[in-house]
């Protein structure tokens, strides 16, 4: 496959996200810039200007009309996708590390950082999908996770609950209406860096600095799969077609001084989702650790954003789709 290189950021990428149709790819970076690109050819449509701090997170609603970003400038901003206009700004006491629209776009969650006497929280915001209407400043609820702070979070299907991944490696389920923890499991030995839902939100994958990624069932938090690697992981995604998971991360800190700089050797690793131990392939090309991975909703392409400031869009070729393990079929 030939990757398309998107050069639009001057500092490391923090998150990339496809819209529901997959024709648009949103990217945010520490350089305070939000970019939107056509995913099929890499052409940039535009930017969303307004943040005055590193942008940590981005999400888009299911109709591709509203964009939500969270930043180190202690604000979360809502944008009109088409025009780039900032529709609303929510102010917080600390930086916002993760935002996510609920399935029905009526709500969004924002994970706030823990700092200077302020505990980390998960804020539930009400979103009005009509662009003209004024957004409400008042959150529906604020969840104060007990114990370790949340690093990433996602909505369950039908808004049943919120799933959170924490700094101590645990994964929890929260009732967003009451703010209570429903359930918690000790999943990883180090902080969770990413949490991504499957297409139907019945299971999700977590990536961690403990060099592994795991899959859990959403309703029960039962552990389903574990993928071991040799580098701390920053992101993990599930492919909607073909049974793969894609993992990306960085080189072990210890190795940095003893190995020669290997140009373009940071890799996205593909593992077989069901067979766990089986590494299917690697895609290299980034010049620095991979911070974020997103898979196109149709499963025919995926993108990765790196510490090197580049977004690489890969469209799979024939071989990928024909790949099967003969003994399984």
């Amino acid at each position, binding site marked *: 496959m030939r990757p398309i290189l998107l050069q639009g950021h001057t500092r490391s990428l923090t998150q990339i996200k496809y819209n529901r149709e997959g024709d648009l790819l949103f990217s945010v970076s520490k350089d305070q810039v939000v970019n939107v690109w056509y995913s099929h050819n890499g052409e940039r449509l535009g930017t969303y200007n307004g943040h005055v701090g590193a942008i940590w997170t981005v999400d888009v609603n299911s109709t591709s009309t509203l964009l939500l970003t969270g930043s180190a400038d202690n604000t979360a901003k809502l944008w009109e996708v088409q025009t780039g206009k900032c529709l609303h700004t929510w102010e917080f006491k600390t930086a916002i590390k993760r935002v996510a629209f609920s399935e029905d776009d009526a709500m969004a969650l924002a994970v706030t950082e823990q700092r200077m006497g302020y505990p980390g929280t998960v804020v539930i915001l009400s979103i009005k999908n009509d662009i003209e209407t004024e957004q409400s400043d008042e959150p529906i609820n604020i969840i104060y996770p007990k114990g370790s702070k949340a690093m990433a979070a996602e909505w369950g299907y039908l808004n049943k609950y919120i799933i959170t991944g924490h700094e101590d490696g645990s994964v929890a389920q929260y009732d967003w209406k009451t703010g209570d923890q429903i359930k918690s499991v000790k999943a990883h030995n180090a902080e969770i860096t990413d949490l991504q839902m499957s*297409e*139907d939100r019945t299971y999700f994958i977590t990536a961690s600095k403990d060099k592994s990624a795991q899959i859990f*069932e959403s309703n029960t938090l039962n552990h389903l799969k574990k993928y071991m690697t*040799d580098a701390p992981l920053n992101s993990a995604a599930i492919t909607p077609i073909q049974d793969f998971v894609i993992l990306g991360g960085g080189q072990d800190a210890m190795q940095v001084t*003893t190995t020669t700089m290997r140009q373009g050797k940071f890799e996205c690793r593909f593992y077989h989702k069901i*067979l766990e131990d089986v590494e299917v392939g690697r895609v290299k090309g980034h010049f620095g650790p991979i911070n974020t991975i997103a898979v196109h909703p149709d*499963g025919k392409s995926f993108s990765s954003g790196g510490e090197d400031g580049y977004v690489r869009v890969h469209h*799979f070729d024939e071989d990928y789709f024909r790949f099967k393990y003969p*003994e*399984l079929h």
Partner: protein
Amino acid sequence: MPGFDNARQFPQSIEELDFSDIEEKYKVPFEEGFDTIIVVDNAPTVDESKKDKLLKFIRKIFKNAGNIKDIDMPMDPDPKTETLTSKGFLFIEFETPEQAAMAIKQYDGYPMDKTHHLAVNRFTDIEKYSQIEEEYKEPEEEKFVDLGSDSIAEHLRSWLTDPQARDQFVLYRGDVVSIFWNKKTEPPEEVHKRMNWTETYVKWSPLGTYLATFHRQVIALWGGPSWNKIIRFVQSGADTPFGPEDEGRQIIIWDVHGGNLLRSFPSSTLSSDGTPNKITWPMFKWSPSDKYFARVTQGQQGQQGQQALSVYETPSMGLVGNKSIKIEGLVDFEWAPSSDKEKERDKHSGEKKQKEELLSYWTPEIGNQPARVTLLNIPSKEILRTRNLVNVTDCKIHWQSNGDFLCVKVDRHTKTKKSTFSNLEIFRVREKDIPVEVIEVKDVVIAFSWEPKGKRFAIITTSDPNYGQPTQGGVTLKTSVSFYYLEKPKPGKETLEKKTSNAIYWSPLGRHVILATLRSATTFDLEFWDLDFETTLDQKEFAKADPAACLQLMNTQEHYGVTDVEWDPTGRYVITSSSFWRHSIENGYILWDFKGTQLQKHLLKKFKQLLWRPRPKSLLTSEQKKALSEEEIKHRRRLTEEWNAWRKRVEKELSEERENAGIVLPSRRDDDTIEVIEEWIEEVVEKTEEIIDD
């Protein structure tokens, strides 16, 4: 804080001081001194006046054995004459225990004159024999356990039937030798442990059936699930085959099953100038079928250039054709390994046909005959191929593991003899007329290794000026590593520059290789490479065109103080160890998987050696091996079925819940109905009108 409060309790005089700790530290071990002393008995008894004459006489006799450090003949007053007389025995101290041994050998029983036959013994032996019990006790008979020949084999190979297909390894640490099962990510499971099981080191038999331990005069073999002593071989004299002793120390060939001595050979002969020859080990090289064993013999004393290749056959233990093959200038030879196909054919054919076995040897330039590599068949002694070489400094013979290829690394000097470079002469042994290809290498080749069972090899070269110089000891050389692919029509090559690697370790199955930097003070790199890395997502097309394109570095790791790298026999795991025999910093071992993922690390003080237990050659053909084992396939099917069943259940639950809630999400994926519309819009950028006046 020490103070003077208890001054009264201080020792008052030097006698009261306690020196016991210093004494411990500097104690001279009692025994060591006495191995060099012999007792000479049955000497004539003399008085003071004749003492010197006798001592001079004794000295003259014994000086052939070695350097006499001291002679002591105790004199006691004779009750009859009341003069000091000797008692008929004396002590002689030599410089080394070996000289003392020589003296005993040569002069025990020496007739000084008609009535005095000297008895010469080790001083320490006297002590030993004086302690033998007066009464004869019949030795306990070792119980003979008749296992029957089939169950013996089963019993000795029991470790292969481990249901988890684990491999064993032996660990020698301090004084303890233990056997463990490898348990991947968990700490290894100990099977057996014994203190002082060996005196020097341990070694597995080539098929992994026995563990050999080495002691002063005995080599013992152990095996079976309970690690009983299977058999022991007693040698007179010490165990290691080094050292220029003539006679007494011998090279002996034993039959392992019965413990019989098959044949012994004198260990060294003197070369033409009278100095004993240096022994190179292995002294004998066995042919792959074990039917023949051979060695290079130097000529008779005084005759220069009469080297010969002595090939013996089993079970007769005699020379093939009853004579050695005279090859002038013969330096070294190697048997060709047999291929897996040949081994299978033999197994299935049932009878052992008289098969030709190939070996290769090289001879340097002699007179006007050029240096030459020769391929010779045994037992026919037919020469299959020769190859002349010029300007040769040295040759090294490297056979590929199946005997398909032979590489002779030729170090050449330029005409001025100022610089050396290397050539690799590749013999394609299986092809008609055995064609030879020459690969020129600009720099010095410091390491060479064939991929097991493959058509590829790796070399390490260096152009570092420190190589070969006295300064090399402290320097980590800059090296380059090259991988060669013996494809037709021209060998392909892939080179990695700016390395420090100086050792190549292929996985026993080929494909994977570790490049290590050993014996450096600053770098301890381990690079895990895969030569056949094909991603299914790309490069599969490239792979067919250019095999070198699949070279992939899987991982780079480090093991501080690494001294050895050992693959397990299945190629799944690797152990890198830091041995106490080489240095004492951070001894221990690390277990990795073949991709270079660290699985376990153990720091063990006084860790000496770790050896995987070899496996006998697989009974499966290579085709059978390539396919996944039954187990693997079952496991994969099971995982997939479990997953699919779970998905079905969850999807059903989900759709029910959605229906109840009245919310049904539209399906995201409408595969063929996505229309991509690209519009090219023409925009007028600029419009200019130019009016041209004529």
